[in-house]
């Protein structure tokens, strides 16, 4: 039994309404407890007086595992050469800047105070690989969202006008079979359309073969996720990613949810207008206004930061188009197993490039204009907008207006002129940063024991020395505890532990397998029983990760 005491820290715990109060925190066997029981003996006490204490940060959208990420790693030896992670007494060697190995990713996340990371685009057939990669991502908890919407099984159900209950059963079956925490839809129906040689698909445009529209897919899946009681709303990568004028598509996509919860991911890439000489402008104001008005809508930003990165997406329709802009000039595009696809395109965002600079400004505009920090999330869509290691820099941009404006003065002047960023005075407080990186992601994912510091919570705790330079503060915490173990001291991993895997297990009628099993036999490349991942197998994939199921309160 281990008992830890963190003494005298300034606790910032928005989930429990605590803003900068001096409190002692007790940890017993990996969990936060209110006080010590008789006979408990503190095995380690840390005097953290004057220092800022938060729960471990949660990245709710980061591409850390699965086929496309591994393609990116293989594709970019030139990325890795300059960015090695040296072996130490406790850590293994690894490497990679924008496409790091899982070991490097886990160490670096932990060293920034992140203790949970969620892979947002798991192709069901590829779930095993995603769990294996996440299992080899040390220290942090993981989980993922299963991709549906371009899978032929669902599209056939829609064509056959099957009832919502059957669809809900299928969706639940996918969540169970892939051991995931939510459902993601990527360019709804568009990945399928690309296989039929369609090169674009608007929200109300029909798939050439199925006749199904993206709107219908979103309606059906938001409803399914909601009715199944899955905590996390449908995670939507909307149609027309990156296309000038897509702000209209994005606003229409919000409406398509018909008031049900919907999460729009990397919304920066979906907030483009067509004004100005170059027919490319910021749609941030309209997007922020819509989010402020629609309480059912949440979003993560997918901020762009300048430099070399690689874009990895399930949206192979977009990525095939983007391959023309690859830098360096190489790209991988795949159609995958009647379910989805992927595209990997290296990209360099340049501050003197008008479009890139405006993308940067649009992301920040959205951050600053969305009023409720509980519904907007701090992401770069790692590695699509920038590698996750840029988060401390992003936090500084959000918390420090003069720094932000100084940066704004250095970007492409035409882009600067097209942005209202300079007029936005908001500076995020530490409390708001804690909301968007801890409390809110835990809440929107249904992680009841993460993202806060109340008794019963898992002891994922980070201690920072406050620094007016928030980039310095957040890039190197003093202490990081994972499930009560000290894993990082002074920004360096001192102990490697294995994180847990978060999943949901909604109730459903197993009779759906009578439809699914023959489909697999007739059309798929594997048998249904070899597709499903059992709990035991998940733990093996995860290299021994503990499975943490989260409750679903069925709503239909």
């Amino acid at each position: 039994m281990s008992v830890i005491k963190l003494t005298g820290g300034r606790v910032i715990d928005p989930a429990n309404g605590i803003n900068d109060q001096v409190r002692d925190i007790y940890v017993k066997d990996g969990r936060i407890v209110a006080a010590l029981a008789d006979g408990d003996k503190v095995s380690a006490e840390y005097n953290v007086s004057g220092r800022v204490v938060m729960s471990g940060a949660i990245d709710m959208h980061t591409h850390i595992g699965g086929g496309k990420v591994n393609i990116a790693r293989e594709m970019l030896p030139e990325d890795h050469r300059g960015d090695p992670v040296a072996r130490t007494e406790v850590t293994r060697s690894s490497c990679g800047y924008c496409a790091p190995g899982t070991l490097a990713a886990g160490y670096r996340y932990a060293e920034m105070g992140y203790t949970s990371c969620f892979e947002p685009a798991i192709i069901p057939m590829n779930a095993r690989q995603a769990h294996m990669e996440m299992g080899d991502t040390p220290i942090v908890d993981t989980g993922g969202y299963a991709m549906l919407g371009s899978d032929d099984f669902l599209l056939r159900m829609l064509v056959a006008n099957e009832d919502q209950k059957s669809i809900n059963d299928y969706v639940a079956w996918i969540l169970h079979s892939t051991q995931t925490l939510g459902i993601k839809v990527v360019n709804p129906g568009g990945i399928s359309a690309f296989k039929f040689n369609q090169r674009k698909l608007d929200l109300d445009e029909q798939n050439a073969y199925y006749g199904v529209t993206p709107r219908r897919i979103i309606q059906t899946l938001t409803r399914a996720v909601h009715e199944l009681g899955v905590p996390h709303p449908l995670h939507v990568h909307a149609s027309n990613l990156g296309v000038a004028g897509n702000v209209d598509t994005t606003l229409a996509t919000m409406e398509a949810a018909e008031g049900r919860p919907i999460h729009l991911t990397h919304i920066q890439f979906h907030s483009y207008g067509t004004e100005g000489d170059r027919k490319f402008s910021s749609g941030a104001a309209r997007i922020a206004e819509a989010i402020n008005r629609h309480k059912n809508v949440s979003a993560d930003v997918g901020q762009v930061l300048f430099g070399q990165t690689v874009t990895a997406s399930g949206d192979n329709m977009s990525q095939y188009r983007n391959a023309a802009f690859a830098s360096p000039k190489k790209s991988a595009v795949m159609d995958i197993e009647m379910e989805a696809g992927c595209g990997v395109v290296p990209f360099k965002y340049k501050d003197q490039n008008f479009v890139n600079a405006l993308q940067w400004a649009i992301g920040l505009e959205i951050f600053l204009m969305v009023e409720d920090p509980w519904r907007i999330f701090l992401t770069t869509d790692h590695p699509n907008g920038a590698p996750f290691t840029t988060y401390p820099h992003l936090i500084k941009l959000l918390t420090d207006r003069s720094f932000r404006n100084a940066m704004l003065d250095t970007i492409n002047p035409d882009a600067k002129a097209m942005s209202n960023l300079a007029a936005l005075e908001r500076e995020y407080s530490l409390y708001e940063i804690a909301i968007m990186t801890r409390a809110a992601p835990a809440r929107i994912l249904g992680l009841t024991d993460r993202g806060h510091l109340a008794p019963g919570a898992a002891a994922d705790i980070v201690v920072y020395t406050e620094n007016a330079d928030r980039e310095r503060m957040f890039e190197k915490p003093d202490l990081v505890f994972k499930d009560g173990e000290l894993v990082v001291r002074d920004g360096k991993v001192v102990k490697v532990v294995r994180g847990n895997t978060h999943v949901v297990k909604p109730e459903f009628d197993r009779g759906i397998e009578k439809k699914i099993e023959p489909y697999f036999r007739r059309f798929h490349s594997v048998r249904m029983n070899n597709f499903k991942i059992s709990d035991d197998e998940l733990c093996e994939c995860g290299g021994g990760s503990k499975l943490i199921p989260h409750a679903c309160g069925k709503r239909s």
Partner: protein
Amino acid sequence: MTNEASSTVVTEVACPFCGLACDDLSVDTAGEALAVVGGGCAKAQAGFARLGVSHDGASARVGGQPASLEAACAEVARRVKASAQPVFAGMALDVGGMREVMELADAAGGVVDHLYSEIGWRSTRVVQDVGYVTTTLAEVKNRADLIVLVGTDVVSKASRFFERYVWNDEAMFEPAPAARRIVYLGGGLNTAAGQSPDGRAADVFDFDRARMPEALSTLNALLAKQPVSEAAPLGIELARWQALVEALRAAKYSVLVWMAGDFEPAQVDLNINAIMSAVRALNVTTRSNGLGLGGADGELNASMVHAWQTGYPMRTSFASGIPLYDPVHNGTARLVEQGETDTVVWISALNDKTPPPPEAKVVIAPPTLKLEHEPEVFIPVSTPGVHHVGHFFRGDKGAALPLRALRATRLPSAAKVAAAITAQLKEVSA
């Protein structure tokens, strides 16, 4: 996992003996050896029969003498610790085995090299140099209307390709499978499987396969609407090449299939580059995809795990404490030949036929592996998908299949052995 409690037949078994990883096998576990009684192919039958016994009598050996597993692992740890540059070769492993070997290799400052890496690194070079446009087997099964096999018949290495993915009873989309068009580029191939169920023979461009660059150069030139220097490239009338190009342009979902190991080694990446050039040209107006098949002997298990853990593909040296990728110089054969390694550790749980190089001082393999020389340490291991559960990446990268435990054994898995050596190594370090 049996059909009924009394049956000794296990169904829906995934096969780890080639890159297709067919998962529809029925395996009878009643006898001394495992018997494939449904699905499968000759290679599967032989593999399950040969490896599917318990091998309980096999023991580790040190210096040719029986030794305990612990003693043998300690001896390996001592050797890799003392080695100036250890190499971990073979690597016919499941995912779990590879994961543990990676930890060992890093701790030992070694290099990891799969037995197919000499082809594999050249194949990987394509994604590093230009990327690709590819598809996976289920897509082929339902969509492909024109399949061009470039320098390979596939079936010599992966026998059920046509049976499982081409000549199916039905497909989700047009055309009906039987109407698919099959083209072989290259002679000396087993083209029988390419004949359609209704007796339509495949279209074979018969030429010496070492001359594949000429064929691909012709196709790319014609696709680009450019001239070629010959009236009959490779002795085949230009009109036939032109007709193939027209067919590719007209196809809705053509698939160009290759197996990197079927190309001349020096041509591997250039030929795949050339195929990708054709595929990209076709995708301007229609859909076309490459399909590289491989993955036998756990090739993809090794390459995938290596890439995700370290960032780099195999043939990376961990000697200096940071990963250094050099596929040209870190091949086992070269390291041995140039005297750069003093310790080759051969680890192979799936392959008991490929002999380790004579320089391998440590062999960790099934007891059925025939050794020409007694290594200094031999540790017999069980086989994934036969003796223990595991995971296996299919050769198209489209799926990782779960492997079953069908036969009990007292032999340890390669993963367990590697972990034991790593633990010993850290003891030695500490």
